[in-house]
């Protein structure tokens, strides 16, 4: 039997052996591979293909219907999405909504650095050798396992603000002496901060915190003992041992958070159920924009084009992060 680290069979192996090796592997491979090809791999390619068409979803009864509904339009969708035109001497985007929702998506990602810093702080606290840490860790993780729909519904109720009905948050604010607390989900200015507050609550004690905690527990104790001998204070230990030793974790956490933030599945749920993307589009993210085009307006071709752009954004961010972020990582 082969060692798992050896590369695939070289071409020098005789054809019958290669065939029998393949035959032996197929029963293991096929159940997953067929599904993977059908529902993951080929759809990625199909999405790129769809983005070059003006496909609109309508009942299809024959092959002729299919060709009638779908016309190859080249890069038209992308021109409409990303291009601009001149109108009365002004440069205008062809699809101003896209840029606005891209802006919303990026704005809502401003919560990510806060969330990561909070996770690191919590992990540092949790890493103290105290009793009952498991209980705290479990409590911090609760928002991550709770159904996003239920979480969003509770927060909608907490943010609630009507002249004669006041939600929990504004009751507290009024109790603290703020006479006119904001109408969180109903105002253009406060809807996004409300989303960021809710996302912070939902993410700060979640995956990133657990990853940081694992990172902290992997730092060899001798480093701290050596630092103690040199008379390093707590700040110096944090700055010169903990932070550099955690940099691979930070790199991973930042990469994953950016990818997750651009996709924003939690924010999609929030926008879908709390505000419908409003007021006046203030909380519409790219995901909701794609959903609306695909499901509500049946324009799958255009939706696929937006999805491809989202993918390219994720790809670019990851590439930049790999290219430049790696340099800041201290490897043992």
């Amino acid at each position, binding site marked *: *039997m082969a060692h*798992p*680290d050896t590369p695939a*069979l070289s071409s020098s192996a005789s054809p019958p052996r*290669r065939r029998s*090796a393949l035959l*032996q*592997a197929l*029963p*293991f*491979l096929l*159940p*997953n591979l067929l*599904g*993977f090809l059908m*529902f*993951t791999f*080929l*759809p990625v390619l199909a*999405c790129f293909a769809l983005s070059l068409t003006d*496909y609109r*979803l309508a009942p299809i009864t024959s092959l002729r219907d299919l060709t009638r509904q779908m016309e190859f339009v080249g890069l038209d969708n992308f021109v409409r999405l990303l291009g601009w035109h001149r109108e009365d001497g002004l440069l205008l985007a062809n699809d101003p909504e896209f840029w606005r929702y891209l802006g919303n998506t990026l704005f809502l990602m401003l919560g990510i650095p806060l969330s990561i810093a909070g996770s690191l702080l*919590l992990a540092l*606290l949790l890493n*103290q050798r*105290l009793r009952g840490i498991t209980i*705290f860790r479990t*409590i*911090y*993780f*609760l*928002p991550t*396992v*709770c*159904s*996003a*729909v*239920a979480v969003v*519904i*509770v927060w909608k*109720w*907490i943010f609630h603000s009507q*002249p*004669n009905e*006041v939600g*929990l948050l504004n*009751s507290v604010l009024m109790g603290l002496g703020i006479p006119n607390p904001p109408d969180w989900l109903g105002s253009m200015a406060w809807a996004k901060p409300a989303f960021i507050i809710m996302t912070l609550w939902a993410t700060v*004690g979640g*995956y990133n915190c657990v*990853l940081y905690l*694992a990172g902290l527990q992997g730092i060899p104790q001798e480093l701290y003992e050596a630092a103690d001998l040199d008379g390093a204070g707590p700040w110096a230990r944090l700055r010169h041992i903990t932070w550099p030793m955690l940099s691979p*974790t930070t790199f991973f956490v930042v990469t994953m958070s950016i990818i997750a933030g651009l996709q924003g599945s939690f924010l*999609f*749920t929030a926008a879908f159920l709390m505000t419908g993307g409003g007021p006046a589009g203030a909380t519409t993210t790219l*995901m909701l924009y794609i959903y609306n085009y695909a*499901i509500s307006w049946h324009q799958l071709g255009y*939706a696929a084009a937006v*999805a491809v752009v*989202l*993918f390219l954004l994720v790809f670019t961010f990851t590439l930049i992060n790999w290219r430049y972020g790696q340099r800041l990582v201290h490897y043992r």
Partner: protein
Amino acid sequence: MISGSAKRRHVLLTVIAYLALSAVGATMILPLAWMISTSLKAPAYAVEFPPRWIPSEPVTTTIAGRECRVADLVGGTFLSRGPARVAILRYSPDGVHVRVLSPEARVARPPAATAVAPGDLAAGEELTVPETDLTAIRRTKLHWDNYLDAWRAQGVRVRDAFFGLAHRVDGFLVFYLNSIIVTICITIGTVFTSSLAAFAFSRLRFPGRDSIFLGYLATLMVPAIVMMLPVYALLANLRMTNTYAALILPPMFSAYGTFLLRQFFMTIPQELEDAAVIDGASPFAVYRHIILPLSKPALATLTTFVFLHSWNDFLWPLMVVDRLALKTLPIGLAHFQDSYTTEYHLLMAASVIVMVPVLIVFIIGQRYFVRGIALSGTKG
């Protein structure tokens, strides 16, 4: 002396750490506690200002110096029989909204409430009393019946297989069954097929192995919506939306499970396998009797991940299902929210109903869960 002050400093730091931990813990718990608190309140007292954490209801109240009984609430309506006199409708920042129930109620019109001349109120009249004019004696009361109301609030018409008769089935019962069916199928399917594939990728040699695995890896970074759109289009064209197959099959084959298990299988020493092969074990026997038993922690991790993910999944079921009879809990709850937008006691009860199983699974499986996150982090 030095050790004494160091000890004192240590105690102080410990106290500060616990205070900080508890403050954050309280922030995490409060919204969930508020959910449970609201779910146990009577409708009239769900929205109160200032908010009340322990659900309680006024028994008697004094309006402008005169004492009167407060009506009981039964099943959402006021019981106006007996000595009940007034009903408290709503607490709000501008005062307490009160309705007079029985004609013999001789409630003095509070001077601050209205510009109309003072006098006795007629039954059915409603007025707003300043909070300060109303001093109620309250009694704690938990409305567990809210849960039953939420459970039953939506009905799904289901045709039975034997007689073709239509029955009304409680909405959340249907959503629960759907979620259980979908989640169990996805979890078993994912763990089974991806453990087989991971075995092939980590333990067998065959032509094209590494390039196929590279194909798996490449899809890990692609946003899920990119795969969802064409699959949705395909299902819509085949008229296969609103089926269990549409809910179950597409989410079952993400590259993630295969990747996670392959990484773990790679760490199992080759010698164990070699010994079995010398004894004449087939690849399947190696998979079944060596790799699987040694990979229990990784399998448990993947199981917990997939279970929680598919139990809470919102977007995919939302895209492929719009028939009530096929909705899973998250989209069932979203639908419930559409119809009961302002009935917070029912909304919160329904949310608790949806969340309980997940919390139980998490508390049982959290060891694997936390380990799994750490595992995926160090490998990435």
